[in-house]
């Protein structure tokens, strides 16, 4: 495995070298960086031209320029060395521009990828398990539609309609009766198709889902929850216990009492400690959050190990996951608590449509985080839709194929529960091809980021790239290119490791 990874890295290195050279030459040959000065009327025109020639090293032949640039990049790899990615024609250091731009773009790309994988794979599995149901057809059609949607168009749609309409609605967050009925019916139909079963069970599910959704929506509307959203202690406890229940059901089945008790205990400990740690959580830093998460997961694993009895390994894993989820809910609760203060700070227009953050925003950790989230929301949604289509279709197809395998039939025949068959035998094997898709899709997401950044006016790497291309400057383009290529190589590496984890045959060979 190590040999494999190292070999991959070496190949990637040489491929990168060739790719950078090709792109460098193409960008340099694509136009004249001095062209914008052709119509310049100012008396110091000659001086300006000389300055640009000096900054872009236009006096050197192209291969020499490339080597000079490569030398600058190589100095980044040396620890302590000053990164030199060249100058723009305005004399700015590209490395400075890149540092400013990188954070927002990587945030967008990672958020979109993770969300698309999680949601896409989940939906794909459900539509495979409920093949030819209404849910399946809806998802199939939606996936086709999303495939065919131009990303930039969706982004403009989201920006011009969803953001503005939603912000308007937030001024008086009441759900009207027609909307409430439509949403409840939709929810009822979804649950009906997802849960399945015989006719009687289907109707019960439909009815219960309809009533529950309607009641929830009505109470949210009446209590103006959307203006001042919060989970509060009750919902926090409920959600954490629910997560514990779900994790147990998915990993071992709730019939295994000691595992169930371990996860439920973990959830309760998590909720209690969130109140104990309230002073710490009022304005933490990212370091504190990660430390707390780590400690929480370790405690969860400990509880599982202690309470698990004979299944201590499984119980420890399930409890650790529960601890992570409980931490997630606590995090959500605190973020939501910051909404009113944030809303006041930005004048009630919560969903942002321009930029990657509010410039010079002051506030607590939670408000700053919320600020990033509201700016991320729409671009992520736009990119996610298209990736989601790919993942859900692909997962559905591979899941169906896996479910048709002989070993799944054998697993069913020997009396394993449907949960074990699906989660342990089918799902894990279906994930192997999906991992391959991840490596392809990541490139699309980055391409999508370039476009969404244009729509939402982010000063991210995508802007750097497009503006560099339009003014025929190789340095900013290459800076973008290097970051993208390296992150793709890293992503491929992660996929390879996942691959080895999922498929023992690869580990052995």
């Amino acid at each position: 495995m190590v040999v494999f990874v190292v070999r991959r890295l070496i190949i990637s290195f040489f491929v990168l070298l060739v790719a950078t050279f090709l792109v460098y030459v193409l960008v340099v040959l694509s136009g004249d960086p001095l062209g914008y000065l052709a119509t310049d009327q100012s008396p110091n025109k000659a001086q300006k031209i000389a300055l640009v020639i000096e900054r872009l090293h236009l006096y050197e032949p192209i291969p020499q320029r490339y080597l000079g640039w490569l030398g600058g990049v190589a100095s980044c790899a040396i620890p302590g060395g000053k990164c030199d990615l060249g100058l723009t024609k305005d004399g700015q250091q590209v490395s400075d521009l890149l540092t400013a731009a990188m954070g927002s773009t990587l945030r967008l790309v990672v958020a979109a990828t993770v969300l698309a994988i999680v949601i896409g794979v989940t939906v794909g599995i459900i539509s495979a398990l409920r093949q030819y149901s209404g849910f399946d057809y809806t998802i199939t059609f939606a996936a086709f539609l999303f495939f065919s949607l131009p990303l930039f168009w969706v982004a403009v749609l989201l920006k011009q309609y969803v953001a503005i309409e939603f912000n308007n609605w937030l001024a008086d967050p009441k759900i009207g009766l027609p909307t409430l009925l439509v949403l409840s019916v939709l929810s009822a139909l979804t649950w009906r198709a997802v849960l399945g079963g015989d006719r009687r069970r289907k109707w019960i599910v439909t009815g219960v889902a309809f009533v529950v959704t309607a009641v929830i929506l009505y109470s949210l509307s009446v209590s103006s929850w959307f203006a001042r959203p919060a989970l509060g202690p009750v919902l926090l406890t409920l959600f954490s216990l629910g997560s514990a229940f779900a994790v147990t059901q998915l990993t071992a089945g709730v019939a295994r009492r000691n595992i169930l008790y371990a996860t439920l205990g973990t959830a309760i400990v998590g909720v209690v400690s969130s109140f104990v740690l309230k002073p710490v959580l009022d304005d933490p830093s990212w370091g504190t959050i990660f430390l707390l998460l780590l400690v929480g997961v370790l405690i969860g694993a400990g509880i599982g190990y202690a309470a698990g009895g004979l299944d201590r390994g499984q119980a420890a894993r399930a409890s650790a996951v529960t601890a992570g989820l409980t931490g997630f809910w606590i995090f959500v609760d605190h973020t939501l608590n910051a909404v009113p203060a944030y809303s006041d700070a930005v004048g009630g227009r919560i969903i942002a449509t321009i930029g990657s953050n509010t410039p010079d925003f002051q506030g607590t950790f939670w408000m700053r985080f919320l600020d990033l989230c509201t700016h991320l929301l729409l671009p992520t949604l736009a990119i996610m839709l298209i990736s989601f289509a790919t993942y859900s279709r692909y997962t559905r197809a591979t899941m169906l194929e896996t479910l048709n395998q002989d070993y799944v039939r054998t697993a069913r025949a020997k009396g394993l529960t449907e949960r074990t068959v699906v989660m342990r035998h089918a799902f894990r094997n279906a994930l192997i091809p999906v991992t391959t898709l991840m490596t392809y899709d990541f490139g699309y997401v980055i391409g999508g980021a370039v476009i969404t950044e244009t729509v939402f006016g982010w000063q991210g790497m995508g802007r750097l790239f497009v503006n560099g291309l339009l003014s025929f400057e190789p340095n900013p383009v290459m800076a973008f290119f290097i970051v993208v290529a390296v992150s793709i190589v890293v992503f491929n590496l992660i996929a390879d490791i996942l691959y080895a984890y999922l498929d023992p045959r690869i580990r052995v060979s």
Partner: protein
Amino acid sequence: MTAPERPASEPAADQRVTNEQPLEAPSMAGPSHDDQVTVATDAATSGATSRPAPVSEDGHGSIADTTTSPMRPEAPLPPDDLQAQGLTITARTSGQLVRRRFFRHRAAMISLAILIGVTVVAFTSIGFGPFPGWWGQDYEHTGPVINRGAMTLDILPSFIDGDGFSWGPHPFGQDDTGIDYFALTMRGTQESLIIAFVVGIVSTVLGTVIGALAGFFRGWVEGVLMRITDLFLTVPLLVTAAVVANKFASQGILFLAMALGVLIWVQLARLVRGEFLSLREKEYVEAARALGAGGMRIIWRHLLPNVVGTVIVNATLTISAAILLETALSFVGLGVRPPDTSLGLLVSQYQSASQTRPWLFWWPGLCIVAIALTVNFIGDGLRDAFDPKQTRVRA
């Protein structure tokens, strides 16, 4: 349909589902069985002494086989039984089967009709090149802006708002300078269609040829192909496309399309190579070689017909990807440049008008969606037609 009645087509699928209950056909994909199958099923269920068809082991078992294979090596049922019941079997080539399955794919057929409709309207309405169109207004002629350039299209029938359906002088409205927006949108559609189809053709030809050579001859061609694939795995397509488009866009859309086509062939080449790697080991290739056939003849006569399905399906998907790629590039400003226009450019120009004059934003966008969606559905129909076992998998 039951499993055993499919003689020559898909050995693997047949073997797999032999023991299953009759499979229900997916209604969305369109029931894609042929009459002959139904006949066989009827015969089987009515107590005739049918037996499962022997799975064909000849090398032509591939579903994509359209021209060369000697079809129907064994009849699925003893003919006497069927004759006794007054039923006859007509043999069909697999090309005919594929065509039938495709023509019965409802979504694909509707999409094909819409796509042809859009194409015909786009090219005849405002004319193309030297040919005049029937619309009467062109995409360059400015005029007085009437009523802020609002849409004159009225699609509500008379029993709703009383004045009935009418086109009006500017059904899609007018842009800032009074150019008829219908003509402008149609011009953009023309450009996008041309680019998409040129990209599709260029990349399909390149991908098939290179993939075939790499898969059949192995050696340095394969080495180079795999290295280029590595290259494209490391760099997102949109990034390379943007760099290339920026270089060639100023030389007109044909150059832009060719340049994009030269970029997109890699995936198809990999697919074709993969299929060739397994096909080249088949016995019938060996037989052909023993008879003295050269490499080129084997590729052309014996192997390529077997990958036609893959190639056609991939070509369709490339076309829809090319539409989206071109419009995205034009939107960012790296593709088609003014004074020429494209759907992406139109959306880009009027994205800020989407609140005040929404039609300027919606029409070009809807055209893109219409083209991409129909092409995708046609691709889906083709895939089902060439590879029916994909739709038959059952949990």
